[in-house]
């Protein structure tokens, strides 16, 4: 059954552009039902701002079903807020109480520059995928799908990693701004599958090195796993590291053969 929350104080980060100085702006929400989603609360705030002739708070969002990875808010210092395994858009007001003060900020990481207010640029993630986060399979020549049996446990483990929504919470939560969980999730998905073997080591090498060029380095804090809305296990990072080491020796061998 629904309840009404009263007197919420929002401290919202406003910043007019990438180079501008930002600051918190305070708004009070007098009343809201706890059935509302967190982003619906921001919608209401924005309607009010427009009503007052002011500019709406800029924030990224789209599917509002926790799958597109667009929403990206730091809520009271936690990436995606207090509920475990939940993206910002799936967070509902029933997780808050009357009288709460809620601090809302953008992802903060040097690889994710702020565009405006709560919106950041996460295209460095795309660069990592472009470097090797795929299996080369040109359209047309694929063999019958059942010619490549994949044991169920392997398919399941690949799927566990493939669930990553590319939101960047792992980076935002990491004290070093590292993208290891994101990168390792993709590498694990592809490297576990039989189809992914041909490019396994080259993929790993190219992706890891592109990651290192954009992001900070991992020092095993584990904050990423705790923040991840898909609860991707930090084990994937161990797998990536192992494959990266092998990639280095494999490539040396290949060079020696030439």
């Amino acid at each position, binding site marked *: 059954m629904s309840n009404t929350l009263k007197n919420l104080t929002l401290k919202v980060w406003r910043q007019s552009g990438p180079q501008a100085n930002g600051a918190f702006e305070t708004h009070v929400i007098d009343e809201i039902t706890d059935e509302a989603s967190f982003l619906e609360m921001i919608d209401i705030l924005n309607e009010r701002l*427009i009503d007052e002739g002011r500019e709406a708070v800029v924030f990224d969002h789209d*599917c509002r079903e926790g799958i597109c990875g667009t929403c990206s808010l730091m809520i009271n210092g936690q990436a995606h807020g207090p509920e475990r395994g939940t993206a910002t858009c799936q967070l509902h007001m029933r997780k808050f109480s009357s009288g709460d003060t809620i601090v809302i900020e953008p992802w903060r990481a040097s690889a994710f520059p702020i565009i405006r207010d709560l919106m950041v640029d996460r295209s460095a993630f795309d660069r990592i995928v472009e470097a090797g986060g795929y299996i080369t399979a040109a359209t047309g020549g694929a063999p019958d799908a059942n010619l490549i049996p994949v044991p169920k446990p392997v398919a399941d483990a690949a799927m566990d990693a493939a669930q990553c929504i590319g939101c960047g919470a792992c980076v935002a939560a990491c004290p070093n701004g590292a993208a290891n969980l994101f990168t390792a999730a993709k590498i694990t998905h592809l490297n576990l599958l039989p189809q992914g073997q041909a490019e396994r080591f080259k993929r790993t090498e190219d992706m890891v090195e592109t990651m290192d060029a954009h992001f900070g380095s991992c020092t095993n804090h584990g904050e990423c796993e705790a923040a991840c809305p898909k609860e991707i296990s930090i084990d994937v990072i161990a797998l990536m590291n192992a494959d990266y080491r092998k990639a280095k020796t494999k490539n040396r061998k290949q060079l020696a053969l030439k």
Partner: protein
Amino acid sequence: MSTTLDSKIPDGPVGDKWDNFKANEKLVNPANKRKFKIIVVGTGLAGASAAATLAELGYQVDAFTFHDSPRRAHSIAAQGGINAAKNYRGDGDSVHRLFYDTIKGGDFRSREANVHRLAQVSVNIIDQMVAQGVPFAREYGGMLDNRSFGGAQVSRTFYARGQTGQQLLLGAYQQLARQIGIGGVRLFNRTEFVDVVVVDGRCAGIVVRDLMTGEISSHSAHAVVLATGGYGNAFFLSTNAMACNVTAAWRAHKRGAFFANPCYTQIHPTCIPQSDDFQSKLTLMSESLRNDGRVWVPKVAGDSRAPHLIPEDERDYYLERLYPSFGNLAPRDISSRAAKRAVDAGQGVGPKQNGVYLDFAEAISRLGKATVAERYGNLFDMYERITGENPYDVPMRIYPASHYTMGGLWVDYELMTTIPGLYAAGEANFSDHGANRLGASALMQGLADGYFVLPYTISNYLAGWLNKSVPDTSHPEFSKVEHEARDRYHRFASVGGTRSPDWFHRELGKIIWDYCGMERTEAGLEKALGEIPALYEEFKKDLRVTGGTDGLNQTLEKAGRVEDFFELGMLMCRDALDRKESCGGHFRAEYQTEEGEALRDDENFAHVAAWESTGDPMAPQRHVEELVYEEVHFQTRSYK
């Protein structure tokens, strides 16, 4: 009056048409391909697969999306699965059966030749996606698993947990990313298509707005593909992502592309009912839940007892009762209307009495909680996050919501619109689903269009342009269209009224939902055709967009999209009014059987209505494409 639309269907029996096309089409040789520039707008399943494949073939490809990354496209949200006529179960499936089911599911309002081609290439899609590493569900032996879906009696649906769309889109995105990485595709992200440029009767390029800077610019090309998704957000509340809109298709329509069957919209039976007035969207609960969930309402109207206190014999499992052979798997339009009837009759459940139950108690006792959790765990979790109720203990509450649009830009067999050189793919076209789409068939169609149809058909057009000059962006038509686009955004920013774009969208959506939703009547549609233009006038006078036209302004973006929904809304109602029959998702209360089922009029309406813009949104011109059935014969759709 009516011009004849040339659908360019190839010769031969329906099963041979696609092969005949491929045998006779004009090709562009590999060395010449790089002389051609193709623009692909939209990077969902249809757009990403098209852009990647065209680049692999050697064309120069520029891809545009308003998202920050191609991976965000709305295709990502598809849950249930993708159909293919693989017959891996040996349960009697075949290309012909998938073809037949799709024609029948579409209530005999789709083009036979297109649907047959779709069924043929469906098998290649699964091969392609598996080769790319899509982690489809497997059996213990390592072979691919299947599930059944509404509207079919075979198990032909491939799935990746409840995240099939995500995994397919990531597959297509990765293939696109590879092309971006090696320079085959240039990607323009956070860039919105705002208009198409037509020179000498041919599509010469597009005009776009950089969402970060507000800059308007032109891009020329030999051919343009719009793969910009559906218009289900016309209803405001829908299962679509917030940014889904009709702008690309609508702008093309205003420049001469015919818009087909706008009244064919699909209302999905299993969504979480609305809980409050400022709700921003509705969430779909995958149709696959109907494999194990049982739909019911209390027999007596107004029964407000908790569900577990209502004894079996006081429950109405109405789908099982009315449609014994399909039961809870009856097609979407039929299930949706049945739910509406129950709620309208006062048997609705939940705090607002606006839902029906989808109950898993029987499945849990038959299969055990663990199996149910394995099949639907993530959906159950999602439901609990949104409603605060746990579906392992309490039945889910569901109600129909706008979900998919079968109507869209009219295209011929080659997926070309009525503007030469302008193509439409995926949900943006009207092509394959007739008046109703079967579950798990949109993903199939988007990937079919992008991977296996467009790459063949587009060369047939381009071959004719080899070594001929086409206008570049210095042509005055580009600056004229750019100018109009700038004026339009300045107009929104300078109205200085009192209401936000969202306010207007919400009000507009209510009108369309009430009169052009699950059930339509002549009087209601006439009423909507009075109310929408009136609200539109208010929009023009009373809109308030804060912030300027330079730089990032989400309120301004929204204003443009809402304006296009206004004009589309009028066309939807006009189309619904003129189609004096009921078929698939278009249910006119005046045309129903005694049992309340849709009553088609094959004599007068076995055609596609393709609308031409006249400049006056209230007076569009209707054209028809007659649908000729050579293989399948009309029958009354029955799922009893």
